[in-house]
């Protein structure tokens, strides 16, 4: 399926010819760049001239960052603050890429499976790196279960459980965003006037909830590898 109208089509068609990739992948790459530029400009604007009494865009960004930090501390405890940059980056990037799809002419990068897989693999790798840093060799105990003579069985179950995490993170975000795009496109084909509007309203809800869930699960996975095995 090719999106009917995209305003960055001219870049993505060039990229498509250059890299020999599909249309959707090229669109995802171009709109990921757009999101990166947007977020970069926003953070530059917010931190360019910082004041003690914030106003305007600095005020808004402080509210956002404060909310995310409160959530991190609530879920992971005070020692989770050192993982705040990773979590907040993921959350803000995913939220903005979800929401950008609601504007006509934009393609949400998270509706492509490669973007969501990249985010999920980052979470997967960082959980294990955090666990290895925290516990060293004893991190292996996380995989062995509570009873020593069940350890060989538990090991394989735990490994499968850990490998299913990036798969479920990837497919959840991708399925939600891609499904929403599909439903919108089908409604648009059937009845373009006012009928897709309730679906778009639901899209706002889905965007926020999926970004929240991704953030929450990333926090819970990192917290799980931080705590002691029992």
């Amino acid at each position, binding site marked *: *399926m090719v999106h009917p109208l995209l305003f960055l089509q001219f870049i993505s068609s060039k990229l498509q010819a250059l890299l020999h990739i599909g249309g959707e992948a090229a669109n995802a790459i171009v709109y990921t760049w757009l999101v990166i530029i947007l977020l970069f400009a926003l953070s530059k604007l917010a931190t360019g001239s910082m004041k003690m009494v914030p106003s305007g865009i600095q005020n808004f960004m402080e509210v956002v960052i404060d909310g995310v930090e409160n959530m991190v501390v*609530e879920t992971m405890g005070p020692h989770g603050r050192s993982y705040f940059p990773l979590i907040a980056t993921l959350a803000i990037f995913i939220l903005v890429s979800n929401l950008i799809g609601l504007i006509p002419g934009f393609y949400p990068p998270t509706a492509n499976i490669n973007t969501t897989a990249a985010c999920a693999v980052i979470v997967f790798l960082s959980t294990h790196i955090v666990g290895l840093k925290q516990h060293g060799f004893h991190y292996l105990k996380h995989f062995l279960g509570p009873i020593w003579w069940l350890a060989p069985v538990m090991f394989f179950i735990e490994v499968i459980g850990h490998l299913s995490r990036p798969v*479920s993170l990837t*497919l*959840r975000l991708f399925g939600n965003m*891609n499904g929403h795009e599909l439903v919108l496109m089908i409604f648009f084909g059937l009845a373009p006037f006012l009928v897709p509007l309730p679906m778009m309203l639901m899209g706002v809800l889905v965007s926020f*909830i999926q970004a*929240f*869930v991704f953030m929450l699960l990333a926090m*819970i996975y990192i917290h799980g590898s931080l705590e002691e095995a029992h």
Partner: protein
Amino acid sequence: MSFFSMCILAAGIGMALGTIGTGLGQGFAVSRAVEGVSRNPGASGKILTTMMIGLAMIESLAIYALVVSLIILYANPYKDIAVKALETVAK
């Protein structure tokens, strides 16, 4: 021709069966969460977070069904074989 109609049938039936269980599960989860909040409104924040995680976990089952249906409809691995067989039948 019947291959493609069967594909569409499989996607529809698969999606329907996939959503039955998910809907039931999410309904139970939300009903218990509402019960918990009405008994102890002070704990609504924690209950909301836990419910969200549970709902996301349950929802991923329906998303798996959706992804499989999408693969059947749009990225069917046996499409080329079916088209080739159709061409030979047409000849």
